[in-house]
């Protein structure tokens, strides 16, 4: 093991210099000359609810520990996503770090021994009883890196889920109301198509289309399916419902023009920007767009509704706080994490459009923010978070993107696209199970 690590670090140390990934001198919560430096890595933009709330958490932490010098290092999501497994093998690591959740991300770090088990801290601070069960799923990982069981390896302090952003003006002009069933949603779409309007802002080269596919699968699914698909608690039949029904529905939606035929090469940003520009009446995507919608939509009235005809939604805890295995101050890290879960910090989250995992939504003043938070609470209460379609196995994101592009381009039937996904899923599953 040691040889692997040293050799790997040596190799990557030399090759990654050019990529600027060394994050030189930015890590390590070292104790030099008695003074402790506590280092936090995150990748949230300054104006996000997370960044604002965590700023408050840092102030509280500093008040409690005036002897500790706190250093925050802003990373990028991509940078950490791609390089954490390299950077964390060294000694120059942060004390606490934001990281993506799921089998193919935090699960990998856990299985690679790069992050610290936090089970004892979870019991000590009561996270294991305070956080809703569906949020705990993403916090715990087995030795193989499979989420949902085993030790705590990360702690979420905010949430996210997928819903429908809609253009109220376009709905009103077309004389349409918010659909409450899948059939009503299809009627709404038909009405827009009849007017020459493509109902959904979509993107085939990134996540939005895959999430729409998964949402349609979820309309036919139950918790057992989610557990089988995401946690490998059973087999997934890719040729049967709910996958078959969801995929066929999506294919028919594409055929009926609910999704633009030229959207295979578009990015999530393209889709979001199209909705913001008022070109499409609906955008099925996550709460992470909320602040952007508030800031950027100027020319029309917009609002939100939960995807109809389902109790299960793509969504999860937000990213996790993880503690690298080589971190110098794990106790302080756990204390900091606990502060981010405090009532005060969670309230800051809520007020700034974030989705707190603990707290009271009724105190939120802004209507849209409150509705979004209340909907999230409703989903949590109904155990309705079904995670994301690309989570089960590493590298599945690209496979789903490719399958969705096939469906949009019409180059494969739903059954053919699902056969490809099934092969990749089974291969990835075997990789995880075969430690």
């Amino acid at each position, binding site marked *: 093991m040691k040889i*692997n690590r040293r050799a790997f670090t040596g190799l990557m140390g030399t090759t990654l210099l050019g990529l600027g990934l060394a994050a030189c001198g930015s890590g390590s919560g070292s104790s030099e000359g008695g003074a402790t430096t506590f280092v936090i890595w995150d990748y949230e933009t300054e104006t996000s609810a997370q960044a604002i709330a965590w700023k408050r958490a840092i102030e509280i932490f500093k008040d409690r520990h005036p002897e500790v010098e706190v250093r925050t290092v802003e990373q990028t999501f991509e940078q950490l996503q791609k390089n954490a497994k390299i950077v964390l093998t060294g000694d120059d690591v942060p004390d606490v770090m934001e990281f993506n959740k799921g089998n193919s991300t935090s699960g990998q770090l856990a*299985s690679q021994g790069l992050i610290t088990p936090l089970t004892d801290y979870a019991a000590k601070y009561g996270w294991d009883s305070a956080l809703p069960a569906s949020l705990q799923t993403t916090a715990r990982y087995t030795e193989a890196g499979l989420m949902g069981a085993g030790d705590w390896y990360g702690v979420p302090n905010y949430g996210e889920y997928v819903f429908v952003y809609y253009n109220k003006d376009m709905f009103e002009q077309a004389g349409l109301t918010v659909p409450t069933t899948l059939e009503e949603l299809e009627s709404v779409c038909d009405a827009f198509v009849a007017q020459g309007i493509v109902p959904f802002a979509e993107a085939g080269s990134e996540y939005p289309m895959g999430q729409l596919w998964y949402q349609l699968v979820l309309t036919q699914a139950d918790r057992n399916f989610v557990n089988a698909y995401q946690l490998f608690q059973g087999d997934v039949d890719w040729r049967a419902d709910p996958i078959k029904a969801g995929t066929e529905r999506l294919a028919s939606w594409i055929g009926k023009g609910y999704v633009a035929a030229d959207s295979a090469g*578009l990015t999530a940003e393209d889709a979001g920007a199209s909705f913001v520009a008022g070109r499409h009446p609906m955008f099925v995507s996550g709460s992470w767009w909320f602040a952007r919608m508030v800031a950027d939509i100027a020319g029309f009235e917009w609002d939100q509704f939960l995807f109809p005809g389902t109790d299960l939604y793509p969504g999860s805890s937000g990213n996790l706080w993880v503690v690298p295995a080589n971190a110098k101050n794990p106790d302080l890290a756990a204390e900091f994490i606990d502060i981010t879960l405090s009532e005060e910090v969670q309230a800051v989250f809520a007020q700034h459009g974030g989705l707190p995992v603990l707290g009271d939504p009724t105190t939120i003043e802004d209507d849209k923010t409150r509705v979004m938070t209340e909907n999230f609470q409703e989903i949590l209460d109904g155990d309705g978070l079904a995670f994301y379609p690309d989570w089960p196995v*590493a*590298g599945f994101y690209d496979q789903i993107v490719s399958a969705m592009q096939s469906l949009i381009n019409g180059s494969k039937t739903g059954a053919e696209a699902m056969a490809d996904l099934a092969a990749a899923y089974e291969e990835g599953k075997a*990789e995880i199970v075969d430690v």
Partner: protein
Amino acid sequence: MPAPTRTRPQAAGPRTRRSRRRSLPYLPYLIPGALAFTVIILYPLVMNIWYSLHKWKGGMAPMRFIGLGNYSELLADEKFWSSFQNSMFMIVAMVLVPTLIGLLLAAVLFDYVGKHFSSSVASTLRAMYYLPQILPVAVAGIVWNWILNSQTGALNSILRGLGVDAPPNWLGSTSLALPSVMLVLIWIQIGYPTVIFMSALQRVDPELYEAAELDGAGWFARFRAITVPQIKPETFVIVLTCTIAALKVFAPVYVLTRGGPESSTLVPSYYSYLNFFDKSKVGYGAAVSTVLTLVIIVIAGVIQVLQNRSARREEEGR
């Protein structure tokens, strides 16, 4: 004049020993270079090969030695083969087309623009052709995405303005994505051969052109009989460096299509990256990059041999 015959020196042994003795005191000067080579090239290469013989998730996860298992898996991997097939298209886009266009541009700039206008006009045009080479690929990628975006791109806006109802889906269709990426690569590459060919042309003895002109040779005849043969060494350098760049092309594919749609623009280096980082199949990713390295070494070797042979023929022809 008969060409001199090349003979091997008969007394090579003692002379080589003497020269070895003479070069011994200079050996310490090789140490920094040898050290740098070991650390920067040799060690990572050997480690990469070592990883390719293992099944490994990376990080501190256990490594399992599987011998040539990753390589045998590669042999049956359709994506791997199609990525190498796409490499051939990259060679067309980064070597063949830019070299031909660069040669023509350089000749026109040197022979026509430089002489009929002024050398500063030729220099300005040369610099403009070189601009895409200076531009960071990420920036170029964003700009080309603006141009080629199927819904909001400038190109399709123009086409719609011209009355085309369903303009092409440049980066989103499996049949057009690869040609679109190739187009961007040609745009990026053209400046490189142009600049090198222009400096090569300055090296050519003007008396050759004058003599040919007096003999009544037209522009194309001079271009074919003097320019092309005279700048052969530079042509080899361009073909060699651009072929290597084409085989390991990564950034333009990453910023434009990420290998899609449906893997239609997948190239070996991006496939290696996907396995290494996204799938955490470190050993498999290492195997892909090892094969890629080998292919590059072999192709570079072949080009080098061809160049040496051509140089030798020229020497013999004199």
